[in-house]
């Protein structure tokens, strides 16, 4: 505990010193951006039970950072904060099919190379349909078929991801490719949460003029305090 406290104090001092050596300059603009559409393969049960995900996403805040190092080297990166709406579906033969409609919120860090990492959280409604004909039997022994037998659940997901933003190298190609494992909690299930491990891989593309909206964009320049602005 004492070691932890000392480490935290050390990090605090280092970051304070570091902050004093650099200055930050922000300029803010509202940028019109079209809404990207995501289409991906999504598999349940560690990725092997096939399905898909479709969604749209809006970046509501973007920070474009240009950091000039003391050596004079310039490092570019950006951080996007987004929300979106997704429709997920999968089919697990002999078990169930499901649709999961969920809004999500998350952030993404993109390097100048186009490589990015992201984390998003989502929650919504899941509807499952049993993977076979379903029957009820009454106390007299009469058998009745239940059409489209299914159940409704609340679900919550945590989704880390990584991908490549091709627009970083080619402005006319607003395309991203991504891979995301996803941990989905389905509730209630036998009095507990049923966890799903899903794997998703697909593309996101921004069609020009499609559902355009404002993104608050911050252009941040970080430079050594002794350099001229």
């Amino acid at each position, binding site marked *: 505990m004492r070691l932890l406290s000392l480490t935290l104090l050390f990090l605090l001092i280092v970051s304070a010193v570091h902050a004093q050596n650099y200055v930050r300059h922000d300029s803010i603009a509202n940028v019109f951006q079209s809404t990207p559409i995501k289409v991906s393969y999504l598999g*349940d*049960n*560690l990725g*092997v039970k096939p399905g898909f995900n479709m969604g749209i996403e809006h970046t509501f805040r973007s920070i474009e950072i240009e950091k000039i190092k003391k050596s004079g080297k310039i490092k570019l990166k950006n951080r996007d904060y987004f929300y979106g709406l997704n429709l997920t*579906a999968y*089919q*697990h*033969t*002999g*078990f*169930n*099919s499901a*649709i999961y409609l969920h809004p999500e919120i998350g952030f993404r860090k993109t390097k100048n190379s186009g490589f990015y990492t992201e984390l998003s959280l989502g929650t919504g409604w899941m509807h*499952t*349909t*049993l*993977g*076979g*004909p*379903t*029957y*009820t*039997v009454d106390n007299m*022994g009469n*058998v009745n*078929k*239940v*059409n*489209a*037998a299914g*159940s*409704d*659940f609340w679900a919550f997901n945590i989704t880390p991801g990584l991908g490549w933003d091709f627009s970083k190298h080619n402005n006319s190609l607003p395309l991203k490719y991504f891979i995301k494992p996803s941990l989905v909690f389905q509730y*209630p*299930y*036998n*009095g*507990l949460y*049923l*966890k*799903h*491990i899903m794997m998703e891989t697909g593309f996101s593309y921004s069609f020009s003029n499609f559902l355009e909206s404002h993104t608050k964009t911050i252009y941040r320049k970080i430079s050594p305090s002794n350099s001229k602005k």
Partner: protein
Amino acid sequence: MKKSTLLLVTLINFFLFSCQKEPEFAGTKMDKTIFLRENGSDMPIRLMGNADSKVLILFVHGGPGEGAWFEHVNTSKLMEKYVVAFWDQRSSGTTQSSSSMPLTVAQFVSDMKKVVLLLNDKFGPDCNIYIWSHSWGGVMSTLYFSENNYPENVKGWINMDGACNPILLRDLEKEAILKFGSEEIAARRNVEQWNTCIDFCASHDTIKTLDDFFTLNAYAGQAQSLLPNVNSFNFINLPMLVNGPYSVLAYFLNNKAIFQNQLPFLEEIFLKTDLSSKLSFIKIPTLFLWGEYDMVVPLKMAEIVSNSIQSTIKETVIFEHSAHAPIASQPEAVNDAIIDFIERMK
């Protein structure tokens, strides 16, 4: 925009409901899944094998909390001749449920009755049904058969290592640990492990709590796997779980749910259920299949039950390289014994 929305809805409906056609309950290589929806649970019944044989075997799995379908790898010979119904009980295997209602033994027996009625409806009254129970499934089957209220085409009971009278388990398990333990210690095999089991039995004259019962049960399970004559097997086949109809995490969750949320139910089974008075009502032809080295439900249970039931046909087959799971340790021999019994019942 409207057209694309319509297309999307149509696609989703097709995706979700394309598997909902009424199956044919016939064919020599049937492989279909149907569900029984009963009191908050959707229980899958996987029908595999030769449905044209007009013989159906309903597998009533152990546990509670295990699943049935994974046994299909050990029943290929049976499935060539008959159709085998692998039913996942409530809160077991891949049964789906959004309910957290308390479980009771009576509810499981009621589910079993409805599964038989459903299969009878789908395969017709000319199809002979055999109940093949294992371990905990033996408790349910004892209650089911003791009521003598089953359809006429239910022709026999294949009772494999069945815990038919759970109140006896504690004493029988201790007796088996002491018997096999002293033999193994004399032969200087796994002396330390056997001594641990024997010490536990010696220090627990009476088993009164679930914790003690499960400790004893775990010792019995571990000890039987130490015996040199028992064929080993893999209990969990992960690729099969991932690629098959099981949802991997649902499979483990169902089992966890029973042991986490249903302790009164487990107490009811293992500490309070005395079926001595029920056994004498059983009249169905019965085949006992038992692992010679079963220490979870020892062979003595088969003797007690066989002597108590009224069935005119009762036979016992003992598997000399098996413990509590002959179907996994000696699948070929178990398949042959069941086929032999059914063919003679025809």
